[in-house]
């Protein structure tokens, strides 16, 4: 029996969810089922929707690609292999504390299996908030040294990702002021182009004092560095402080 014009019209105006709900009822005749399935395939080919056990999570991860930090990094380095890990890191950093712990524990194994320790470092770059400083640094190089995406991708690989352990210092509560100061001065003596100092919550008091002292007594500027500080509160209300030290490019 041919499909009635009315049913055809109805099927043509339905979305995939409505069509699937209609199929589930089992009330359609054979011609109706064929028409519904055809319409589902047509809609599916338009690539407008996806089905997943946790739609909210999928949508949130997808939307990370629209975040300013992500877009700016992509603008600098192009379709770099690390972008997927940056996306994951940005997603993790938006979760609450418990959500983060669960997901990080579950995800680290997957990341390590595919990308090794490099992958973990990149994810950490996004979760610690260092990413914004890295983006600033790359954007500045792009303008000042007129670098293209390939050049910037190489710098991102060689000066940031591969040496991440050497250019980052996570201050712990038990670290002494003297020890913190020594380590920062040592990093400046190594003439590292960019390095980061991180501290969470109470652990930030000592580096704050130390960096302020190193700035006031001229140590930082004498070593031809400048620094900036950003702080961000995570969902558990912990404040993460990030200091970025950058070697000033000599004029001559």
């Amino acid at each position, binding site marked *: 029996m041919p499909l009635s014009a009315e049913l055809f019209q109805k099927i043509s105006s339905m979305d*995939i*969810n409505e069509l*699937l*709900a209609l*199929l*589930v009822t089992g009330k359609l005749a054979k011609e109706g089922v064929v028409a519904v*399935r055809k319409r*589902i*395939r047509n809609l*599916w080919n338009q*690539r*407008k*929707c*996806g*089905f*997943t*056990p*946790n*739609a*909210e*999570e*999928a*949508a949130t*991860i*997808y939307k990370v*690609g*629209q975040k300013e930090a992500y877009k700016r990094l992509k603008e600098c380095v*192009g*379709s770099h292999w690390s*972008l*997927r*890990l940056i*996306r*994951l890191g940005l*997603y*993790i950093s938006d979760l609450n504390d418990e959500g983060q712990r669960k*997901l990080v524990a*579950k*995800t680290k194994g*997957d*990341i390590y299996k*595919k990308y090794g320790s490099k992958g973990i470092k990149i994810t950490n770059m996004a979760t610690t908030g260092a990413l914004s400083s890295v983006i600033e640094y790359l954007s500045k190089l792009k303008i000042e040294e007129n670098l293209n995406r390939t050049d910037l991708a190489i710098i991102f690989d060689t000066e940031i990702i591969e040496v991440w352990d050497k250019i980052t210092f996570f201050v712990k509560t038990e670290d002494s002021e003297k020890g913190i100061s020594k380590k920062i001065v040592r990093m400046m003596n190594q003439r590292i182009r960019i390095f980061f100092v991180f501290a969470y919550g109470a652990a930030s008091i000592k580096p704050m004092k130390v960096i302020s002292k190193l700035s006031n007594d001229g140590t930082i500027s004498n070593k031809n560095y400048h620094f900036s500080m950003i702080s961000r509160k995570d969902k558990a209300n912990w404040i993460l402080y990030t200091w970025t030290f950058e070697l000033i490019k000599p004029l001559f």
Partner: protein
Amino acid sequence: MEDITFFELEDEEKKLLLDTLGFEVNKKGVIVEKESKKPCLCPITDEMVHFKNASILPGSTTIINTSAFTLTEYFSKFLEKE
């Protein structure tokens, strides 16, 4: 980036969608191709995809084992434009 909306489906609806797209679920709960009965392999993990944990995603019908990691890989590999 293309606009994509994500939905959750009841098991019955999910089976019907898979069926419409050329797949079915075997007795072990693994998604297989309807004609060849070959298990559907997740392009990210290279492992068989179980019905309960499957995401059915656009782009030549990609069926993956769902996790934050696999979703991220999928978006970057299949949907991101230069």
